[in-house]
């Protein structure tokens, strides 16, 4: 029986947040791309929380945007509430978070995908990868159709052998009852890919009309909305916002959970997958934090099109009947009507230590992977890997060097480096504390850090690049100018100082010195700065941050310098760790398994000591000299 056989440059398996970014990047870079999904209606689906961004995740969205990705633009066009978190803290931890209209979000992304040149969205289940001599050749679908490709990107999310569970009930489906992908795992195993099983969960959705909001605290969005994308004009997105609501669990809730804990599949041992500790189910919270008499519950709208409300903080896999009683103990939810049950979901994924920093498999050339399949969690983490996998599939086909961002350049770099160097037993979530150089990796300067890379690979156009270079120039000039503006002890400056609760000047000072005071800023000092040029708000913001935190930033820059030296010592692919007799056995095995890209990355692998690194350096030098001699 003749089967369909088509040729593409790039095959993307999955159209979630990773798959969309990967497919868009590859197609926009001129490669003929096909993106498979089990359902065209579920492109960029948000099956769990109805928001994008948040602490450190907001950074990722900004970075994806600076590289030329879609996520930032998509949420800017479809948000219904927006908030900058940690605004009273330092700029490194400011984080943007927006509530999405889930349906609008999906619809818009689908439109973008379907209208991008070189990109075809195809509804079908991919069941096999085709590999010859450790080189990817394409994929096969359930119907037997073959799609030959030069590169394949796996973005299967939580769909591989997905199983949704609550109480004694389980379904072999993906989220929202979508079809699971039950065949691909076997093909991956057959090709030497190691698979592990992870678990995550989601709370119930209830009908808005059954909620008594008068018993809850209203959570408003910010008055002045800040966009995610550097290309979005802030003025164009100021709009009326929808509220979220805050309420709490109580001892009654906890009692019901405790009384029924033996019916929780997690505690009864039905669920074997490892769940994330940072996103615990309500039964986990109650069991693990028994001393807390209440937990917060955020009631968040799923969109303007629906009455469904998301019960943030109360994900669960308890049986339906327990869920009913449990949710109704919460003030405001006494009469709550559940639209969708809470459930836990188990799925197959990989440990990303099987990948290079480019997200290509170490042992299968041309096969890439991104998103939850790599053991991460979260829409933003997925998108961040997606765009990198898409770019690197294109680089691979074009015979160019992969784009690898390091830990001092981007949260994306931290994310991928952590994934490929650390064996994790739970889904990986981004956090600002994971970024050792976070003062430099701010969400406000993602464009200054990364636009150049997007430009270099071809996702960012000339005009946008020039804009960033111009911004850079303006900032540098203004910082320099401000350092040389002397302020005498005039009445105006003393007034400003008093008004802002700072101590009055006894001697003159430079404007830069004054900006360093915690009570003052570049903006409030405008009246004493007579020759200040007219600058855009984003430029002024950078000037303020650069001067205000100069000491801290410089210290991190010095650390980065050291870091870079080891990071730039690239380990040749041909190195055979098992032949380096001076390495301790554990180090030898770990290095052989992880095949680190650089000396820096090698030093982050647990079980590799500084002495092993010394031995490795000596060996590399030996290797280099021998290589030179033989040439």
């Amino acid at each position: 029986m003749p089967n369909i056989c088509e040729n593409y440059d790039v095959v993307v398996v999955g159209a979630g947040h990773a798959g969309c970014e990967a497919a868009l990047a590859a197609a926009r870079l001129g490669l003929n791309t096909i993106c498979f999904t089990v359902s065209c209606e579920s492109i960029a689906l948000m099956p769990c929380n109805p928001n994008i961004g948040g602490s450190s995740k907001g950074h990722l969205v900004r970075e994806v945007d600076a590289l030329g990705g879609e996520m930032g633009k998509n949420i800017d066009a479809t948000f219904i509430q927006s908030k900058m978190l940690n605004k009273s803290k330092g700029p490194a931890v400011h984080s943007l978070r927006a509530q999405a209209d889930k349906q609008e979000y999906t619809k818009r992304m689908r439109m973008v995908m379907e209208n991008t040149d070189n990109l075809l969205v195809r509804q079908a289940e991919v069941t096999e990868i085709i590999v010859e001599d450790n080189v990817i050749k394409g994929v096969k679908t359930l119907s037997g159709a073959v799609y030959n490709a030069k590169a394949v990107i796996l973005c299967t999310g939580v769909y591989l052998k997905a199983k949704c569970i609550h109480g004694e009930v389980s379904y072999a489906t993906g989220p929202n009852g979508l079809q699971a992908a039950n065949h691909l795992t076997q093909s991956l195993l057959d090709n030497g890919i190691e698979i592990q099983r992870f678990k995550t969960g989601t709370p119930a959705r209830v009908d808005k009309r059954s909620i008594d909001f008068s018993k809850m605290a209203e959570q408003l969005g910010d008055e002045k909305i800040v966009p995610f994308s550097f290309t979005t004009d802030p003025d164009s997105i100021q709009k009326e916002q929808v509220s979220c609501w805050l309420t709490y669990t109580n001892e009654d809730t906890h009692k019901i959970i405790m009384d029924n804990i033996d019916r929780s599949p997690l505690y009864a041992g039905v669920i074997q997958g490892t769940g994330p500790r940072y996103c615990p189910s309500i039964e986990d919270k109650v069991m693990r934090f028994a001393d807390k008499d209440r937990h917060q519950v955020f009631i968040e709208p799923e969109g303007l099109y629906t009455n469904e409300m998301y019960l943030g903080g109360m994900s669960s896999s308890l049986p339906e009947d327990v869920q009913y009683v449990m949710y109704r103990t919460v003030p405001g939810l006494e009469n709550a009507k559940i639209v969708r049950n809470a459930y836990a979901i188990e799925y197959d994924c990989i440990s990303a230590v099987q990948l290079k920093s480019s997200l290509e498999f170490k042992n299968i050339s041309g096969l890439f992977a991104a998103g939850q399949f790599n053991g991460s969690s979260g829409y933003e983490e997925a998108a961040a890997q997606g765009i990198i996998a898409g770019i690197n599939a294109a680089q691979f086909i074009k015979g160019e060097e992969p784009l690898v961002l390091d830990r001092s350049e981007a949260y994306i770099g931290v994310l991928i480096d952590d994934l490929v160097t650390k064996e994790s037993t739970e889904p990986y979530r981004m956090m600002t504390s994971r970024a050792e150089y976070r003062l430099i990796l701010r969400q406000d300067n993602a464009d200054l850090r990364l636009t150049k890379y997007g430009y270099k690979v071809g996702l960012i156009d000339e005009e946008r690049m020039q804009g960033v270079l111009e911004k850079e120039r303006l900032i540098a000039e203004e910082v320099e100018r401000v350092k040389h503006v002397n302020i005498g002890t005039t009445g105006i400056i003393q007034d400003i100082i008093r008004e802002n609760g700072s101590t009055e000047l006894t001697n003159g000072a430079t404007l830069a010195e004054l900006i360093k005071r915690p009570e003052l800023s570049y903006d409030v000092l405008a009246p004493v700065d007579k020759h200040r040029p007219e600058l855009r708000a984003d430029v002024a913001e950078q000037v303020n941050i650069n001067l205000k935190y100069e000491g801290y930033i410089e210290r991190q820059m010095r650390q980065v310098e050291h870091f870079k030296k080891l990071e730039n010592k690239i380990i040749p692919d041909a190195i055979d760790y098992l032949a380096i007799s001076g390495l301790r056995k554990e180090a030898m095995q770990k290095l052989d398994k992880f095949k680190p890209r650089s000396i820096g990355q090698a030093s982050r692998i647990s079980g590799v000591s500084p002495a092993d690194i010394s031995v490795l350096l000596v060996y590399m030098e030996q290797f280099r000299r021998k290589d030179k001699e033989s040439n």
Partner: protein
Amino acid sequence: MNNFIDDTIAAISTSTMTSGGISVIRLSGPKAIDIADKVFKSKRNILLSEVDSHTVHYGNIINPDIDEIIDEVLCIVMKAPNTYTRENVVEIDCHGGILVTRKVLEAVLKAGARPAEPGEFTKRAFLNGRIDLSQAEAVIDVINSKNEYALKSSVSQLDGKLSEKIRDIREILLKHVAYIEAALDDPEHISLENYVDNVLYDVDKCVDNVDKLLKTADNGRIMRDGIRTVILGKTNAGKSSLLNALAKEERAIVTDIEGTTRDVLEEQINLGGIVLNLIDTAGIRETEDYVESIGVEKAKKYAKDADLIIYVVDCSRPLDNNDDEIISIIKDKKVLVLLNKSDMEAVVTKEDISAHMDCKSVSISAKNRDGLDELEETVKDMFFTGKISFNEEVYITNARHKNLLNDALASLKLVKEGIESGMSEDFLTIDMMTAYEKLGLIIGEEVEDDLADKIFREFCMGK
């Protein structure tokens, strides 16, 4: 992480154990000469950065902080590339014995050098092409053997109480960092209101504690940087009396009742310029007494790691099962036998001992302090003829620890400064984490995912 390859390193490159001889402190790296200039005052008032390569200069090493002369030295300046490491190298020859050598090294570290990692000079020599390719394996061996020794000494030489103190400080720091980071990660669940007051209170305490540890380090108690010398002998052979005789202070409990030395006691003594760390152990004999049997186990363990074993024999009593037991433990070690109680009638002679094992023996009376001079001469002799080997890595470890304590202290002070100048909490955790990491290096703990683990374990977060 100390694997930077282009900074300037320093170490003592000859044995430090001779008080009369010359010690060499070697610096290597791009800033070697500049750093030496900060601590060296030439008699002719010239700067090392202005002299020719491969020249020797006479002058003083000074402590730049208080302008005090540490030692009179010769400084040899060798400029890249014709040096052992192919980097700028400065060698400081000083002759003031162990304390002065230590101070010179510390002055150099304070001036910007970093304590060398085990085998690092050799590593650099190789990486810079100074050592032939055929010797690569040998270079790797040097790194490994030195490292093994350094690891052993670094861990075993830290006394338990010190590690405990460092762990306590780290625990406090991690607690606060985890709280703050959890709150930053999940600001709607965890509040930081007034939290900084707790931080200030605890950081103040941490500063005091690290300060105290540094002072201990100055007194040379942080690490026992001498020849690890274990005193063994059956019960009541006079081990404690010997220790007291040598240490000239009554530290061990000396009685006539068998088995009264329950703890392993340690004392650092300077025997004719050679530093011995004397470890007195409970007498070895089979015992039913639980407390004492622990002491015996420890004695065996210490004997295993010792550089030198002093086996005290009660020459007034014949050798018995207990002696056989001891001899079986130590017969392949560097042993010096002391025939104690020479004031009493001897039933055990040097010949009796040499029939069992090949070693030197000396007759003494610990009680009357007779024969101590001969003991001193014998130890010196063993040391100079290389019978007792000692690795300078131990010494370096001490300097490294001190350096790390200083780094941690500096970071903690930055936390305080940050609080005082009103910086928000996310800045404070950066310096707290640095202090946490530096302290971790002292006790040999890697940072790994401590923080994320703690956050997830102790804070209830998220959706």
